[in-house]
């Protein structure tokens, strides 16, 4: 009977080796992914009991951990919570994290590898581990001005403002309306947290959506900047060249005609390219899109950043020129050329378009994190400006810039005029469906020769009467005040 017993011993050895291998897998290989799983109370408890690092705007913390007397020892506190919520995100015991609280969690909680030495020192000196801090690129004044601009349109306004520095890609303002108060979600009163979460997630207005980066909407006439860039790059057009205008654009064999807003005729059957942008002539840009062709239009959009998720650290969605694999008919291409049909963009993307044109055609990669610092303020990481792409040649960019300037000086975008500063801008009013108010857009940058700020504003709905809605009137003044604030510094 000894032989089977020896085999039995081997079988037992195999079982124990399997157990040992498996716990090595669970506790070592898989441990990080298990620790990162949602609803892992052990990790949440531990993180909740940590002195979490602050999120800074300028010098001031907008999210910080303050001592509390309960079992968690620390309470997360947000200053101007609603204002910065789309950037800071939330830090909830019950529902996890969002925004920078989530994407920079390793630094904020102190578990980042670069903080390893700090952790060891804390361990040896028997101190509680501390988290590092995240400094954002936001300009607190620009942020406040942008938010009060949206507020001024009425309490039920939905919209977003994104401002960035075109030469670096640093995001200066990111405001969304309606917003939410992350202090409530960070509360240690979990039933209140659950009530608030239920209210926020069931709200049709989606207060937790970052409209600046996540929501893609038809851009309307602001997209004509992309069409104009494509025309300059591909058709060798000059701003003074005469192009097709008139009251409608018809297509052979099809009943449908592309018309102008308010049935106008753009002041003649042929006008200059520059004039067409100044007065936002649909017929001209529909025709231009047809001349450029779908492939080159899509390529131009891609060069500005369409189709890629360019922002790290915050939830964001790529903008699109067409849906995946679409083959546009002539009328659809013309509609796309004026920012309708399937074109859908984020305000961040439109700010990148305006900024890229002003920045000599160079689109910089947008970023929200300026520096990451250890608890002792040692710099862990600094975001360096990085060129995302060259959307157009410097010569063409400067021509398009002056066309944007004349649009502000004597076109549809006069509401963005700032005395003593050359401002370039473009309005947009995107009709969606008849039962919903149109989207009012405004994109601009200043000063035009070397822009320090590019802004995109979208107002989805407000208490303004339908006939009064126009990009220039609703969104223009907000863009102007944000630009003024940044330039005043």
């Amino acid at each position, binding site marked *: *009977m*000894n*032989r*089977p*017993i*020896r085999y*039995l*011993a081997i079988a*037992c*050895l195999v*079982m*124990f080796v*399997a*157990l*040992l291998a*498996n*716990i*090595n897998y*669970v*506790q*070592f290989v*898989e*441990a*990080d992914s*298990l*620790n990162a*799983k949602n*609803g*892992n*109370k*052990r*990790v949440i*408890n*531990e993180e909740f009991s940590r002195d979490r690092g602050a999120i800074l705007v300028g010098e001031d913390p907008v999210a910080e951990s303050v001592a509390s007397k309960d079992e968690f020892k620390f309470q997360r506190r947000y200053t101007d919570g609603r204002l910065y919520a789309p950037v800071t995100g939330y830090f909830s015991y019950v529902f996890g994290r969002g925004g920078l609280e989530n994407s920079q969690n390793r630094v904020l909680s102190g578990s980042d590898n670069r903080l390893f030495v700090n952790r060891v020192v804390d361990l040896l000196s028997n101190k509680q581990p501390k988290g590092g801090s995240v400094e954002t690129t936001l300009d607190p004044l620009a942020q406040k001005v942008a938010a009060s601009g949206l507020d001024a349109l009425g309490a039920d306004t939905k919209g977003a403002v994104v401002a960035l520095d075109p030469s670096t890609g640093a995001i200066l303002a990111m405001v969304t309306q309606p917003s939410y108060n992350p202090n409530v979600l960070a509360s240690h009163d979990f039933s209140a947290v659950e009530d608030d979460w239920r209210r926020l997630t069931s709200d049709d207005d989606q207060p937790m959506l970052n409209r600046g980066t996540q929501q893609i909407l038809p851009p309307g006439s602001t997209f004509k900047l992309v069409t104009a860039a494509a025309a300059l790059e591909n058709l060798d057009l000059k701003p003074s060249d005469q192009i097709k205008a008139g009251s409608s654009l018809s297509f052979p064999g099809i009943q449908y005609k592309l018309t102008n807003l308010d049935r106008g005729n753009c002041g003649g059957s042929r006008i200059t390219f520059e004039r067409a942008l100044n007065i936002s002539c649909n017929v001209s840009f529909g025709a231009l899109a047809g001349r450029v062709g779908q492939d080159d239009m899509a390529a131009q959009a891609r060069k500005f950043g369409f189709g890629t998720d360019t922002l790290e650290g915050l939830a964001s969605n790529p903008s699109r020129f067409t849906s995946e694999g679409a083959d546009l008919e002539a009328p659809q291409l013309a509609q796309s050329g004026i920012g309708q049909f399937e074109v859908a963009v984020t305000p961040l993307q439109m700010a990148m378009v305006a900024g890229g044109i002003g920045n000599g055609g160079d689109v910089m990669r947008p970023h929200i994190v300026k520096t990451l610092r250890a608890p002792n303020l040692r710099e862990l990481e600094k975001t360096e400006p990085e060129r995302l792409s060259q959307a157009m040649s410097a010569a063409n960019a400067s021509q398009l810039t002056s066309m944007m300037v004349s649009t502000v000086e004597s076109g549809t975008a006069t509401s963005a005029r700032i005395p003593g500063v050359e401002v370039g801008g473009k309005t947009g009013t995107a009709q969606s469906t008849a039962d919903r108010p149109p989207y009012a857009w405004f994109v601009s940058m200043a000063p035009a020769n070397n822009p320090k700020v590019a802004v995109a504003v979208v107002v989805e709905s407000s208490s303004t009467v339908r006939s009064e809605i126009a990009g220039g009137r609703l969104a223009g003044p907000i863009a102007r005040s944000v630009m003024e604030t940044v330039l005043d510094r």
Partner: protein
Amino acid sequence: MSSQPTWVPRKRRGAEFFLTILAVLIGIAAYCAVGLGTKGTIPAGVAKLAGALIVFAVIAHLVVRRVAPYADPVLLPLVICLNGLGLAMIYRLDLGRTQLDSSRQEFANSQLIWTVIGIAAFAGVLFAVRDHRRLQTLTYTFGFAAIALLILPLLPVIGRTINGARIWINLGPFSFQPGEAAKICLAIFFAGYLVVKRDALALAGRRIAGVDLPRGRDLGPILAGWLVSVAILVFQRDLGSSLLFFGLFVVMLYVATERPGWLLVGGVLFAGGAWFGYAAFAHVKVRFEAWLEPFGDPDRNGQIINGLFGLAHGGILGRGWGQGSPQLTPYSFSDFIAASMGEELGLTGLMAILLIYGLIVERGLRIALTCRDAFGKLLAAGLAFSFALQVFVVVGGVTRLIPLTGLTTPFMAQGGSSVVMNWAIIALLLRISDQTRRPAPEISTFDRDEETQVVKLS
């Protein structure tokens, strides 16, 4: 044949004493560390625990020294170490669980009492069973006792259903799992029965595709064993015991007959039983799905997920005694005590604990190898294998190597019947070991040749 000077094994009782003291110190140190980790002070009850552990460990050692002087010297310290760690963890979980909810039942004291009873049972078995071969005469008595023990929980009045499994009986203030005792009775019964029947089961049969398959009529016993296992699954809803009994039986059959064909037959029957269980019982299906995809239904699979979270949170070095949150896992003190250990002692500590279990199995199989009589061999092999299978099934289930089935973690999990019966198993192994390593008694031999008369034939 003349009487040769035979090799006399060293008793190594001194080594056993030293290791026993070391094992007790580990347990006491763990208990103190729990207090330091949770409250920053050494717990008040440490004197009671240390006293009880030291006194009864030394008593156990002295009993072995007295009645089984040649027994394996490593087994006793190993189980004392496991038992001490288990007591410390149960105390730690009492603190954590009552902090969550002050109405939770505390187990540390009763577990200490059960440990003392277990050591008493250990001594009792060593005193009562002076020669394990005497047990062979009681083969069928143990067989009937096993069946009676298995049926007890199904009886009205004393039977109790806890968490869907009807495997408990009420004895006054205590509840008891007779299945634990049935395991030992079955091992003795199988050993005795197979020693007698092994030749018939081993020799007759056909050879198909290189494997010797048994005759149809010899399939009776294995079918009976299978039916009993399925009956346990059906009537008691106890997946773990069902698997354990059947595995024990098939493996002992294989050891007795040396024919791998029985493993094949057993494997086919197991697959059939498992498929039947999966198809017929919702709770088996739930366990299986929780194993494949625990995060598919986080609410339903909360226990296994919590166990995995605990293991991951422990990481390589663990949180330290009293500094993790093992109390978040349901049944962290019994079924999931391995996960609790993994959380607070880390991968390192859990591997050490598994190695202790592995050593116990290795010592058991070594006893089976060196044992000189077939009954002792079979019994030791069966007990050692059932121990290994039990650890594999419960730890593998908790760590998601295999689907989760309810079995106790020997010597560590809270639960009186398990602790007492495992101490009895160790006593039986020590008894066989003592018998094996004891020098053969002097037998005066006669030279028969001289007595034989030379007969002239013609």
